[in-house]
């Protein structure tokens, strides 16, 4: 007797997804994960558009990660056009990148994951059972959003980030307000880390992930020109196509990716394991939880995100200090003379490695675009882990299995809106 358990739609994840577990008797045969987000064909939308329009369009691919998509596209465009941006622009972009990570991790940890820790269905349950934690979440998240709003001019789909430069810089008083808000939530990010520390799973360990991330250069943990893997191998980000091989998934509108024919794992846990530079409080937290985070499966990713909350708040404060000292005034964006070429760059998005690659003709019109998102990279590993967990749990009732599989998916923090847009040119 064969039967199917369908979990649809996946709840408390971004976007539309579905899991199907196929049984033969009580034995698990296969588990499929479909990301059936309605396709929006972003790469096709970008074709024929001027380079100046590209960042404003592509950030709409996803709201949770609109900032990092916008920054990654700016980097790729500037690479293709051979443009250098000023120190001021670099600093503001780095700051807003942290703002994006703070709001995204806070949303994921507290709104999507925390209900599992308190066995409630969602917000109303949290308001009832964990009002203090809820308030703490809202304060951390709002500090991240204040960075987005102050630096980007808008919380979602920030407007000030443009090729070669930026709109108005933030006034001194805006920076001071940001500093105050971030200083207030810094201790709370540590409390958030302590909150998630005990919620690691016990029982059978899943596969040890094969990590992949940007190799950080300088003090910024999320930026660099090379990719690095757990085996120490590094390759330049612009030759990503040699590393990733793509296969069209049979079950959804997303493609899956293998790295050297194996599922790869990207995200906060990958970054911590691949040695990204940490700030003092984040380093202390990582040291304290080293065993939990280094000899782990993906379910430790929630704790890794909590460590990153500390990191990103600390780094934001560092950048704000530099900006306050520098006291920048408004500058004109770098003059861009369009030229034919291609630019490929990588940035660490909240959910992991993100790659944008564009080719332009001599008028600066986009002729091809390729976007590789962290969720697409993680999908193969998600499917592997779902199968392993379902197999470990053979004999469990549907409710327990549904609950466990959904929690596992949440640990990967998939962003399904982003995940359906991949193109190989």
């Amino acid at each position: 007797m064969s039967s199917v358990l369908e979990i649809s739609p996946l709840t408390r994840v971004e976007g539309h997804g579905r899991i199907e577990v196929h049984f033969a008797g009580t034995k698990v045969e296969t588990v499929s994960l479909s990301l059936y987000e309605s396709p929006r064909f972003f790469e096709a939308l970008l074709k024929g558009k001027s380079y100046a329009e590209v960042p404003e369009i592509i950030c709409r691919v996803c709201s949770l990660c609109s900032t990092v998509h916008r920054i990654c596209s700016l980097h790729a465009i500037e690479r293709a056009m051979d443009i250098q941006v000023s120190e001021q622009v670099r600093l503001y972009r780095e700051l807003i990148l942290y703002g994006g990570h703070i709001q995204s991790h806070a949303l994921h940890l507290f709104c999507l994951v925390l209900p599992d820790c308190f066995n409630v269905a969602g917000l109303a349950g949290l308001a009832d059972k964990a009002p203090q934690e809820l308030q703490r979440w809202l304060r951390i998240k709002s500090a991240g959003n204040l960075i987005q709003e102050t630096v980007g001019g808008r919380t979602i789909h920030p407007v000030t980030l443009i090729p070669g430069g930026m709109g108005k810089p933030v006034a001194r008083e805006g920076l001071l307000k940001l500093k105050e808000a971030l200083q207030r939530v810094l201790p709370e990010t540590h409390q958030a880390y302590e909150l998630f520390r005990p919620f690691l799973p016990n029982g059978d360990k899943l596969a040890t992930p094969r990590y992949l991330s940007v190799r950080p250069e300088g003090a910024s943990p999320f930026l660099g020109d090379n990719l690095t893997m757990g085996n120490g191998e590094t390759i330049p980000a612009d030759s990503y196509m040699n590393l990733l091989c793509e296969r069209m998934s049979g079950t959804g509108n997303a493609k899956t990716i293998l790295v050297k024919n194996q599922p790869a794992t990207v995200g906060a846990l990958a970054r911590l394991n691949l040695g990204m530079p940490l700030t003092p409080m984040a380093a202390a937290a990582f040291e304290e939880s080293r065993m939990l985070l280094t000899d782990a499966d993906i379910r430790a990713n929630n704790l890794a995100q909590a460590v990153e909350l500390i990191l990103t708040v600390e780094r934001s404060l560092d950048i704000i200090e530099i900006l306050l000292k520098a006291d920048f005034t408004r500058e004109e964006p770098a003059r861009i003379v369009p030229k034919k070429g291609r630019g490929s760059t990588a940035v660490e998005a909240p959910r992991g490695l993100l790659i944008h690659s564009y080719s332009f003709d001599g008028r600066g019109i986009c002729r091809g675009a390729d976007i590789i998102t962290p969720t697409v990279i993680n999908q193969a590993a998600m499917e592997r882990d779902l199968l392993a967990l379902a197999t470990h749990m053979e004999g469990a009732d549907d409710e327990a299995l549904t609950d466990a599989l959904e929690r596992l998916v949440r640990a990967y923090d998939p962003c399904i809106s982003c995940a359906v847009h991949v193109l190989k040119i």
Partner: protein
Amino acid sequence: MKKPIIAIAGLTACSGCQLTLLNCEEELPEIAQRFIIDYFPLGLTERLITGPIDVAIVEGAVSTPSDLEILMKLRNSSHSLVALGTCALWGGIAAMKNQESRKDLAETVYGSAADGLKTFNPQPLHRFVKIDFAITGCPPETGELLATLAALLRGTFPVFPHYPVCSECRSRENLCLLIERNEMCLGPLIQAGCNARCPAVGIGCEGCRGPVTEANVAAETELLLKKGFPMDEIVSRMQRFYPEWDYEQRS
């Protein structure tokens, strides 16, 4: 007072409108208390739309059979339906190339695998069902979303401004990017309510809130042409969030 039962769902979109609700950090605990949230897959473990629902709030355009099924279910089980955001109201970013062949777009991204995709041109909700109210914006303004929720508690809908972004921009005393800096700013054509966010930080209006009533489209187009922008660039920018402008319209 009876708590209104609400449902929040996303169709073809980026979740940004739903995130706008979650970005109301100060108000969220009170919202959770004053409403019964019956269906909200992004934030709640509840897979079924059972109803009856007082107000369904729907983000996104309709571009797949599954979108349509969810929309129909919500319409059938709800007293009122609110289109949340530019995609739900105007078609939005995914609709910008609706004049081109859907099949060609699909093949550009998915190659031969495109055949298996069940998708049609992204359309606003009102092409399929009656909508009772709309909040525009990509993303919507938190203030307008909160005003709507507050009005719902009183069993009504709020009234939003029907004038262009320029009105708000001028009252903020921003430099006019269109006239004084010769930039492509769509402010004269676009629904206000954002307090001219983009021009206020030195960036031209990209039109994310869709057409204002009585927009003088022809005059804006002529002005941009006179300033030296080629027609294809103007059309490309204007269609970013709404593909159906009438370029001859003089309000």
